[in-house]
Structures are given as C-alpha cells and as structure tokens.
C-alpha cells in the first residue's frame, strides 16, 4: 500500500483521508498510521503546493545555477552544500554527476536580486571554483504537471 499511497499523494496531497482509504481499499485508520509512520521516517517531507507564479501579479525570477567546487578533505561536498542550502532563497541543491558538481535552483524577486546573490554570496565562497547561472524563461511542466495547457477530454461522449 505504501508505494501506491505515495504515488497518489505525490500528485494530490489534499486528498481526503477517507477517500484515500476507499480508493486504496483499506481502512482509514491504516492510512492515518501509514502516513504518520512515513512522516516520522522522513519519507514524507512536506505537503507543498505547486504554484504557477507566472499567472499571479507577483514578480518572481527563477534560476538554475551550475556550480563547480573543490571538495573538502573529510567532508566531500556536504559542507559546501550545507553552506549553500542555508540561504532561504535557495530552493534546491543537488549533487550531480557530469561536468559540474552542484545544481542549485533559486528564486528571487528580480534579475538583479538573483545576480546579487550569485556575485555577493555564492561565488565568493571559498571552495567554489566557478558558477554558471541560467535564468528560467518559461515553465512548461513542473513536478510532473503541465502548466501551459489544461486537460481537455477529446473523446466522443458515448462509445460502445
């Protein structure tokens, strides 16, 4: 049940617990216990909302930053990753394989704010060798959800 439950709430964390129990074919109390257990185990890390900020009047700029770093003795990348993720404007920090080491996603109010973060805070950090900042121009799909188009049922209304 765990895997199926996670797949459902990953797409809809607001689903009613009773309904969740019905569609999983289990008792509500089992769902409650399972979710509590997964929260305690850190499997469920939060119940966030996917927002298309583009459609609001709020100005926001998102960027992806590739960072190359020198790993530190005994710490690997963890130390520098922590120094970066502690900034609240940083959304995500991933250690990745390939041509650079860390990928950071960042949100700011303006281009200027993001640039300032990179030049004033990120780049000067000791072990950082280089950064490359990519501004996001348009989000087509995020968290498995298409943002640009709405689902439209194109089927005939009655078919055998």
């Amino acid at each position, binding site marked *: 049940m765990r895997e*199926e439950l996670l*797949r*459902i709430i990953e797409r809809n964390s607001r689903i009613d617990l009773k*309904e969740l129990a*019905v*569609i*999983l*074919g289990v008792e509500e109390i089992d769902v409650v216990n399972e979710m509590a257990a997964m929260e305690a185990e850190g499997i469920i890390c939060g119940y966030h909302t996917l927002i298309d900020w583009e459609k609001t009047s709020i100005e926001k700029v998102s960027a992806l930053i590739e960072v190359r770093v020198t790993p530190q003795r005994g710490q690997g990348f963890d130390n520098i990753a922590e120094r970066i993720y502690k900034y609240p404007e940083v959304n995500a920090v991933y250690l990745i394989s390939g041509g650079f080491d860390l990928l950071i996603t960042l949100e700011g109010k303006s281009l200027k704010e993001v640039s300032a973060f990179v030049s004033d805070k990120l780049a000067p950090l000791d072990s950082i060798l280089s950064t490359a900042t990519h501004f996001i121009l348009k989000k087509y799909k995020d968290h498995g959800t298409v943002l640009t188009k709405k*689902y439209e*049922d194109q*089927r*005939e*209304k*009655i*078919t*055998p």
Partner: protein
Amino acid sequence: MRNPLSDKIVTIKPSGIRKFFDIVSEMEDAISLGVGEPDFDTPWHIRDEGIYSLEKGRTFYTSNSGLKELKIEICNYLKRRFNLEYDYQHEVIVTVGGSEAIDIALRAMINPGEEVIIPQPSYVSYEPCAILADAVPVIINLKAENEFRLTAEELEAAITDKTKVLVLPFPNNPTGAVMERKDLEAIAKVIIDHDIFVISDEIYAELSYGKERHVSIAELPGMKERTVLINGFSKAYAMTGWRLGYCCAPAVITEQMLKIHQFAIMCAPTTSQYAAVEAMRNGDGDVERMCEEYNQRRRYLMHAFKEMGLPCFEPFGAFYVFPCIKEFGMTSDEFATRFLEEEKVAVVPGSAFGECGEGFLRISYAYSLDNLKVAIGRLADFVARLKAEKKTC
C-alpha cells in the same frame, strides 16, 4: 427503382448506443460516463515511435498479416504473460482493432445456418457480425447472481448439433465480469466434449483487478487448438484511435482469416504497427500505472454505490461497473434518459448490450477521479430523489 439493399443488412438493428449518442452530443454541458475507451492519452514514447516512423517515411503497406517485428513481439508477450506459444509466421494476424478480428474469425469459421453462442450482456458487435457471417446467433442471458460469468450448465443448455463457435467476451464490456481459471476450466470441458470452437475476445486482458490476473482460455489443456484468441492495443495501452488489434489461432484458421483480411483490409495501418512494437517492448510500466488508477476508481465507485444504496456486484475487469436499477420500476432506457435530462449525466442503458442487460446501467470509470466524483454526486442525488418519489406514492 429496385431496392438497392441486401435483406440481411436491413434486418440488423443499429447499435442501441446511437440514440443516446445523438442526445448527448446536442447537450453542451452534459458530463458523460458513457465512454468505452481509456481517458489516458497514448503514452508519449509510443506516440513518438509512430511519429518517428512517419518521419522515416515508413508509409507503405506492411505484409498482409502485419509487420514481422510486431508479430514477434505479440508472440513474446503471449509467451511471457500466458505461457502461450504461437508461431508468428503462421498463427498471428495484425488486424484493424479487435473488432475486425471478431468479424473475420466468424466469417472464416461459419457455414450458413451454423450456430454461434453469444453470452450477453456483451459488446454490441458479436450478434450483427454473426448474422453477417450467415450464422444463427444463440444468446445466453448471463445472470447477475452468477456475477455475469458463463457457467458450464448455461453453456451446455445452449449447445445443439448445429453449434460451431462460442464467443467468450471476458473481461466483459459492459458488466466488468471476469472468468477465473476455475470458471474457464468448467466450460472448457463442455467445449471439448461437444467439439466446438471459441472466439475469445480478450481485449481487456490487461485490465483485471482481482487476486488472479486474467487467464486466457487458450492456456488450458486442449484449448489452444480450438481457440481464436483476440486481443489488441486499444484498452491496455490507451490506443483506441490507432485501430490496432490482433488474433492468434491455429494456422488452419488464420490461413482462411487472412484471405478475408487481405481482400477487405490489405493490412493494418503501418504507423500504428510501428507504435505498437514500442508499446509491446517498453509499455508494461504504462499498463501497470493505468491499471492501478482504474482500480482506485473502481473501488471508489463500489464504495459510492454502497453509500447511495444502489446494488452492484463487484466487477474485477475492464473499466465498467454495472449497477442494478430494477427497484425503481423503470427500464434502463427510461432511467438513463431521465438521468440525462435531470442531472445532465450520460450513462449507457444496459439493454444496449442485450435484452438481459435490461434493468442495469453501464457506468464507465475511464474518467479522472475528480470527474467521477461530480458525476457520481449527481447520481446519488438522482437515486435519493427516486427513492423519495417511490415512498410518497
């Protein structure tokens, strides 16, 4: 002027679904639970293969029986899924949907006057196709108390000296009924004893939700040599519009079916065949994901019916539920019409799938849970109103 028509075709009634279709398509804001195809789009990697085949200029006929790669993949699938071994060169035909396979199988197997047993409620095309093949259709009215399974006794009672073929439509549209291994074993004995053949329409094979996955009757001892197995891509891979199915049978039968297919159709659409190769090679995960979602909706509907007090046996296949509305003293047609007029929700009357579907409705759950919730909410209101009406009079 002379009558331009054949007497035979004139006697065939148009599909009972047509009438509803016409009303619903006029009604702009109606929501529908009447669709017999998946709500999912064909998975992108499958569509992409279709597009790629067009880009590569693969726009020619394939061999009559279908692309070699596809026939091999079909055989691989039947082997891994049902442990069935077919020779891709002689025992497989790729058809234009499962529906073409039904038609050509009947035409290849029937002599005028021979009987074809058709259990109902079932898909709308078996009876007309049998008539067009000059067969005499013999209907078995399946019973709700048997959860719309076909029993050995019912089959035995329908068999005569003239019986040639049994059409076996499970998992079933419209009831959602399945035949488990034990049910199939019971009828297989009757089939072998009477030396008749089976056209097994297993188009919903991948959509079964019980403890036991769908079993093909061809798996049972002595059955493969007397079975035409029909399956396709429409339901499992959400590929209805691609029009692609297939049938597997002993070479003596496919050889004759292939003649009809080659003269009437030539070959199934090439683009679809290339896409289907991809579906068979890399589509198992998609099937599993869609199946899981159908099952969630199925559980939701069963629960909702229980809450509104609408009797319905629990179906374990396809994507239909078949609740009983006999208590309201209306025909299923009247019920469906009133429901559509008053609540603007379209369902298909059970009677469209045979007389014994009278008193039932086919409700499809090939809709998102959100859509189902709205529609089922209206059904609950409607049922409550009918129950109140009944009390006052």
